[in-house]
């Protein structure tokens, strides 16, 4: 049974997408919900199976590597899968009323999103480097149209920019895969790592793959496409893009460096990549500080938050820090996923009600958007890493790792990033508390939110807070199949 669950998590959303595409959204809305729930159930089952039975393997069609495609779920995959499923379910529930309210029928949105979901699951489950290339490319090809959906000048330009950089990144990745294959003769993630030492070709391959993934995951300084693309997409799409798609790229970076290229992970390498992450943390947050619109703030926040994940690389080589840092980074990925999706959906509620997401418009909306603002506030709290959120646990662990190894610099980055995050978060939240300018209230005629839209962001964000209760089981799950150094 557990063997089937792995491909199911890929094929269920894909099939749902096909059905929707064929019979049309209007008749298939029930199918969409059913597909989403099934995917969720499958993902949670996979997590359960991994937690109980250790890493799960499935060969597609019974074909074993090197020709066949291996699906492999260890603790990390299972957690990402589950997070994706939870966020995905939230996005799916939310998108229906949102799109209806905006006057779209969702003919283009649903197939794209469902394929994207399938692709995400595929990314997390693939143990095959080329298969991962296919998944990455599919992610780009589903994400770019979602970013362009608004069809106006900024979103088209953003999608174009994204597409160009992402294609460059995919090609670089493929080039790296080619080199690696040429050197080792295998496409298997772990096998390649076992075969490839610190050779020149692995160095170049690692560079190409890492840089390519950086372009796809919007790591500083290749981040410029992210903000316009994510802020102009429809809110549910933004949520998926920021919380999941960008993270999939970084997930792969971490996997590559921990499983495939550990031999290359010297201290200077850690400093380079971790340094980029650190710059991203500070730079993205500072950029978020000056944005006039809510979704822009949240999008820049994504750039900053993804930077934290890279802080793992300088720390993971130090025995004193490795385990804490690894745990912290993964918890961060999870907490950020929930919080960021919640934040974007909350921004979507604001757009739904007010027709725009300019920050000034937050003045005096509390009576109409109280639940939404609560979700937004909680999401921001998690993003800045304050208790009792999951973001806090992540930060705690990262910091603990850094300090245990005497790495005060990386600890400082974590703290500084939190502070700037607080600055941009409270800039937003303060406006929600600000008094209404004279004569402002009469102009506004807010729309009432459908319940699904009102509660979905809060539910997602609360998942980030639920991690306070579930920290121990989550990390136990993560230890399943983790590399030697981080167990």
């Amino acid at each position: 049974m557990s063997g089937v669950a792995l491909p199911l998590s890929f094929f269920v959303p894909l099939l749902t997408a096909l059905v929707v595409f064929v019979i049309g959204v209007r008749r298939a809305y029930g199918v969409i919900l059913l597909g989403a729930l099934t995917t969720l159930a499958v993902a949670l089952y996979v997590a359960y199976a991994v937690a109980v039975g250790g890493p799960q393997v499935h060969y597609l069609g019974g074909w074993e590597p090197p020709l066949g495609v291996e699906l492999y779920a260890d603790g990390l995959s299972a957690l990402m899968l589950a997070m994706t499923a939870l966020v995905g379910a939230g996005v799916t529930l939310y998108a229906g009323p949102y799109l209806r309210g905006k006057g779209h029928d969702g003919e283009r949105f649903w197939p794209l999103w469902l394929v994207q979901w399938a692709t995400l699951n595929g990314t997390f489950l693939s143990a095959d480097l080329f298969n991962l290339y296919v998944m990455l490319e599919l992610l780009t090809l589903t994400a770019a149209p979602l970013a362009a959906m608004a069809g106006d000048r900024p979103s088209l330009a953003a999608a174009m920019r994204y597409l160009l950089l992402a294609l460059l990144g995919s090609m670089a990745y493929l080039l790296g895969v080619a080199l690696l294959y040429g050197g080792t003769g295998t496409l298997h993630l772990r096998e390649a790592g076992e075969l490839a030492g610190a050779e020149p070709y692995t160095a170049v391959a690692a560079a190409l793959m890492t840089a390519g993934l950086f372009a796809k995951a919007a790591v500083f300084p290749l981040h410029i496409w992210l903000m316009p693309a994510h802020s102009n997409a429809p809110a549910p799409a933004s949520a998926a893009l920021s919380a999941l798609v960008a993270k999939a790229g970084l997930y792969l970076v971490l996997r590559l460096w921990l499983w495939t290229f550990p031999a290359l992970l010297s201290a200077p390498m850690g400093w380079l990549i971790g340094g980029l992450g650190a710059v991203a943390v500070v730079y993205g947050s500072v950029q978020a500080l000056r944005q006039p619109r809510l979704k822009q703030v949240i999008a820049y926040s994504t750039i900053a938050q993804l930077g934290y994940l890279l802080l793992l690389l300088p720390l993971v080589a130090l025995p004193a820090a490795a385990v804490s840092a690894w745990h912290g980074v993964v918890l961060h990925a999870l907490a950020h996923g929930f919080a960021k999706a919640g934040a974007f959906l909350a921004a979507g509620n604001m757009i739904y009600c007010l027709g725009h997401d300019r920050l000034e418009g937050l003045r005096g909306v509390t009576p109409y958007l109280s639940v939404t603002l609560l979700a937004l506030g909680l999401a921001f709290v998690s993003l800045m890493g304050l208790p009792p959120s999951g973001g806090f646990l992540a930060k705690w662990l990262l910091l603990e790792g850094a300090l245990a190894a005497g790495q005060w610099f990386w600890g400082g980055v974590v703290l500084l990033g939190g502070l700037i995050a607080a600055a941009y978060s409270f800039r937003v939240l303060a406006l929600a508390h600000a008094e209404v300018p004279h004569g402002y209230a009469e102009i506004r005629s807010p729309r009432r939110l459908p319940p699904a839209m009102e509660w979905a962001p809060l539910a997602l964000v609360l998942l980030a807070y639920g991690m306070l209760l579930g920290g121990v089981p989550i990390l136990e799950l993560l230890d399943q199949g983790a590399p030697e150094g981080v167990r």
Partner: protein
Amino acid sequence: MSLDAVHELLPLWALLASVITAVVIFALRDHRQRQRTFWNLFGASVKLVLVLLMLHGVMLGHSYEVVYPVLPGVTLLLTVDALALLFAFLSAVLWLVTTVYAVAYLEHSGQRARFFGFFSLCVAATFGIALAGNLFTFFLFYELLTLATWPLVVHRGHPAALAAGRTYLAYTLGGGVALLTGVVAVQAALGDVAFSAGGIPAFSDWAEAEPFQATAVLALMLAGVGVKAALVPLHRWLPVAMVAPAPVSALLHAVAVVKAGAFGVVRILQDVAGPEVAQTLGVAPVLVALAAVTILYGSVRALAQTDLKRRLAFSTVSQVSYITLGVALGGPLALLGGLVHLVHQGLMKITLFFCAGYYAETRGIHRIDELDGIGPRMPWISAAFTVGALGMIGLPPVAGFISKWYLGLGALEQGQTWLLGVLVLSTLLNAAYFLPVLRRIWMLPEPAGRPEVPPERASRWLLYPALFTAAAALLAGLLAAWDVSPLGWAQRIVEQEYPAP
């Protein structure tokens, strides 16, 4: 679940009492005033009862402990010892009182659901701080408190409030970062260690092995809690935060925020580092000096204020440092003085803020020179104010005297005679900024043309809390030698911290 298990989890229930209240109130629509008031009072009363039960239990020698592993090697730990109960009981009582006051105060303002929700959350956080059994738990609730109070500070939403909120966050979050660094460094060095009276043994070993690191960590943690305790030069947020509604100021100054900081100083110095280690590392003397500077600086600044609430705010800056001073001095008597002032200052300051709010709400009085002749007009509230002010000066029999007495004895016990000068000078300064206010209230004639005073009955729910706390402050001093007075309870704590040889 058996009754025993329920009983064991009392700390959790008490914490949940305010969390659930917060959630319920958030869920209520703004116009559901009666229901909200009911829940507010119900939650506060239930909590008080639960705290009393724990008080009873602790007096019988029972100890409560709630443990939940959050991460491998990191636990959420709620313990109830005498020190925790001192603060918890104070917060539970004053929460109830402040709730009564706030309900009356904010009867006609907007966004009450939000306000009262965060209000309850704020108390939950304070309670959590009180019961925290290790540094992780302490930090968790400490930051939660920052978050929960910010919406209260900016509640009014005008530019001054927003600016105050910014300043508040800049300081408290900055302090939070310092605290977090210290706390995590302790965790990284020692693992998951619980507070223990007289200092964590592992910490003193560590301090011996790595004196430099231990000093830095201790200094960071103290700087972190020092922000909330409004130690100079980290005090700037406190006077600015005065724009908040009066019940918030009262809560901020008496129970929640500054007290959390002061309580943190107690916990870190007494139950993490231990007084001797803090002394050897040289942190405690610096803290003593800082506290002394703060005591004088706050008083001098208070002298120059013309706004009543701002004067009270600077007075808080000064008064809270008494607690810091007492703890940092590091002797049984000084600790006793500091601990008992934790309660006394709360009672007196909350009274003063209640009164300031009353004046502002009923008469629109904000500046001190507008108080002329208000005493004979509003005798009850002014009497409460007088009690609070006299207590702050340290005049017997109001509670402030008892604190000052033990602080002075503690300073002398530690051979720091110069501190006596600080205490006396501070008393003089306190007198210099409180007595003129009392003179205006009671002695000066009312200015002509002041509109007719509404009778005090009209806003009696603003009055009763002030009278209650004033009476409490008076009794705390008058009956100080009684076993269950704050002094008696503080003595019990000191006996645990400094067990008789």
